[in-house]
């Protein structure tokens, strides 16, 4: 049951991530309304993020040995750490200052962000397929 709520929270979280990344990838100017959008997206993440954690942690604790031994789970956690660091450092900078950089920078950052976060989601599902 918790897992189904985890999926809903993950979807909202990913929506909050993608809404910024899509703009980074776009040909349109990053600036203007972007600051407002980035701030709002951050609020979405601040609400959805804890929900993801609170529905994720009980899944782990109820079967900790299995997850601890799973290389796919370890991979997911590693990717999550990378995604978090990337988001609060590089992506935040580029989202705020993107207009003053060569256009390939925001696009690369957007692409990497999507790859990292969708990677977390995909490896999460893949845990179920690996034993």
């Amino acid at each position, binding site marked *: *049951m*918790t*897992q189904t*709520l985890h999926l809903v929270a993950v979807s909202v979280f990913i929506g909050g991530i993608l809404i910024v990344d899509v703009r980074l990838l776009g040909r349109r100017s990053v600036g203007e309304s972007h600051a407002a959008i980035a701030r709002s997206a951050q609020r979405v993440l*601040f*609400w959805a993020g*804890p*929900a993801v*954690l*609170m*529905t994720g*942690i*009980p*899944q782990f*604790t*109820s*079967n900790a040995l299995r997850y601890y*031994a799973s290389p796919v789970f370890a991979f997911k956690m590693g990717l999550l750490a990378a995604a978090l660091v990337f988001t609060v450092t590089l992506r935040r900078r580029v989202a705020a200052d993107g207009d003053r950089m060569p256009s390939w920078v925001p696009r690369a950052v957007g692409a990497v962000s999507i790859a990292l976060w969708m990677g977390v989601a995909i490896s999460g599902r893949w845990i*179920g*397929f*690996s*034993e």
Partner: protein
Amino acid sequence: MKTKIILALLTAGVLCAGQSALAHHPFAAEYDAEKPVTLTGTLSRMEWVNPHSWIYIDVKQPDGTVQKWTIESSGPGAMSRRGLKKTDFVAGMSLVVKGYAGRLKPAIAIGTVGGPNDGADKQ
């Protein structure tokens, strides 16, 4: 900002409370981790399918009757990684299944069969 953090933590607390064993996906809702079973019987049928294979075995009871068990098992990918093949499962063969009994229906379990590659990692 502070109220938001408090609200978030409260929500978190509510969600965490009473989760424990029920949290781990439908396994806990359908099968009982407190009821391990080891079933020895003859294979009646085996469905080598995704996402879970199904093993149907006839288990002879001490009183002579036969109990038909349905076991939910690993998908083809996981089975293959343990060295098993679809052709390894022949109707009439004797089989040992280890797993956990179901909650919702009688004579159902989630379990695994020994495979050639087992022992390489502990479970």
